[in-house]
């Protein structure tokens, strides 16, 4: 039984991992773009973006999942997500990417704004372009500063993926819960915690390693 459960949970955990990794892949760059928007001097760009960040950070992710999944059907009269598992996955991914991009954008904004003005001025008088200044001078310093808050968000994301089950996205908790109905046992549900723990432990080690790697400068 233990082997059967472990195997089933592994299968469910693959769904969790897929949602986790694709969310990171899209939300990190999107978050950087949003952070530029939220720091823009143009109010037409800045204000709507700040409004979106406020809405996304101010409402529960579970509600966002429901609105993104059911909203188009209700308001547009058609399901834009496609049918079946893949449709639900796309909807869940969309909600996660938007949500995490907003959180990441605020971390990026904080990081970028914490870089002293002198760094920009030194780059300016040395004739660096704005792009060169960002990529060669600013970015690595920002990354160094934001590794700890990003690692926090990433570990939260591992656990947040379980929210996707409200739109019937197949992930590890969903899988664990099934054993209650099918076999009348609850321990597989508790057992899912081990998967989360091991994975977030792995991530903690990874982020510790990155922090150490960036320790060569202050």
């Amino acid at each position, binding site marked *: 039984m233990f082997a059967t459960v472990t195997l089933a949970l592994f299968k469910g955990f693959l769904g969790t991992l897929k949602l986790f990794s694709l969310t990171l892949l899209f939300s990190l760059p999107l978050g950087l773009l949003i952070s530029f928007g939220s720091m823009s001097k143009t109010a037409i760009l800045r204000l709507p973006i700040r409004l979106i960040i406020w809405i996304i950070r101010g409402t529960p992710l579970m509600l966002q999942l429901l609105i993104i999944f059911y909203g188009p059907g209700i308001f547009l009269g058609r399901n834009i997500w496609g049918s079946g598992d893949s449709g639900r996955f796309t909807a869940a991914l969309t909600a996660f990417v938007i949500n995490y991009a907003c959180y990441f954008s605020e971390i990026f904004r904080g990081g970028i704004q914490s870089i*002293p003005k*002198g*760094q920009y*001025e*030194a780059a*300016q*008088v*040395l*004739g*660096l*372009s*704005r792009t*060169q200044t960002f990529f*060669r*001078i600013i970015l*690595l*310093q920002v990354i*160094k500063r934001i590794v700890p808050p990003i690692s926090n968000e990433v570990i939260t994301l591992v656990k947040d993926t379980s929210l996707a089950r409200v739109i019937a996205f197949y992930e590890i908790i969903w899988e664990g819960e099934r054993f209650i109905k099918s076999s009348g046992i609850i321990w597989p549900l508790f057992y899912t915690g081990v998967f989360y723990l091991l994975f977030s432990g792995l991530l903690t080690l990874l982020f510790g390693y990155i922090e150490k790697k960036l320790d*060569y*400068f*202050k």
Partner: protein
Amino acid sequence: MPILEVNNLKKSFDGDSILKGISFDMEKGQTLSILGSSGSGKTTLLRCLNFLEMADDGRIKVNGETLFDGMKTSFSENELRDKRRHFGMVFQQFNLFPQYTALENVTLAPRLANPSKDKIDIERESRMLLTKMGLPDKLNHYPHQLSGGQQQRVAIARALALKPDILCFDEPTSALDPELTGEVLKVIKELALQHTTMIIVTHEIPFARDVSDQIIFLDRGVIAEKGTPSQVIDSPTNERTQKFLANY
């Protein structure tokens, strides 16, 4: 022909007039020191020359080429880069790039400015500059591994690497312990002896007297006194200059 001509330069921030019409010129190979109390506009003047701030009015000419004439006060990134090319800048807070070694701090800008130039040549020139600054054994150190005085000398090498027409110093020793001030002043003095064209904003009066060909005393946005060190420092005629120097 003077290397730098500044004419009636004006700058105000939010209606607060910081520079009220500054005019001076300097010859190639000269060292000009700018003295004055805090808030007199010394740093703003340097920043306007470097286009870190845009002056409101007046004229800036380098080698006869007009960089600023008050008619146009907004420039594209490339235009600004061309104008800034004439000036090097050494900041009070050094502003080295922390993720690069001393050598990389010096080579970065020349590499980006001349992508076709041989990397090895740029590196050799940068090593020579750092050696000249007395740092031949610190090439691969990161800024946080260096003392303030060493960091500032790297910053001077970094500014020299682009071979600017005029090298500007904004209170280069104000962030340093008295112990470390000496080593930085020493390399600036050597540069003066080699006829590097320099503008130095400083509070080090004896140093300014020692290295300068010309001294400007700035008071509340105007030039109160201008002349050789012996004129301005030893026998000032302006009351404000006298008062200021009496504190030293």
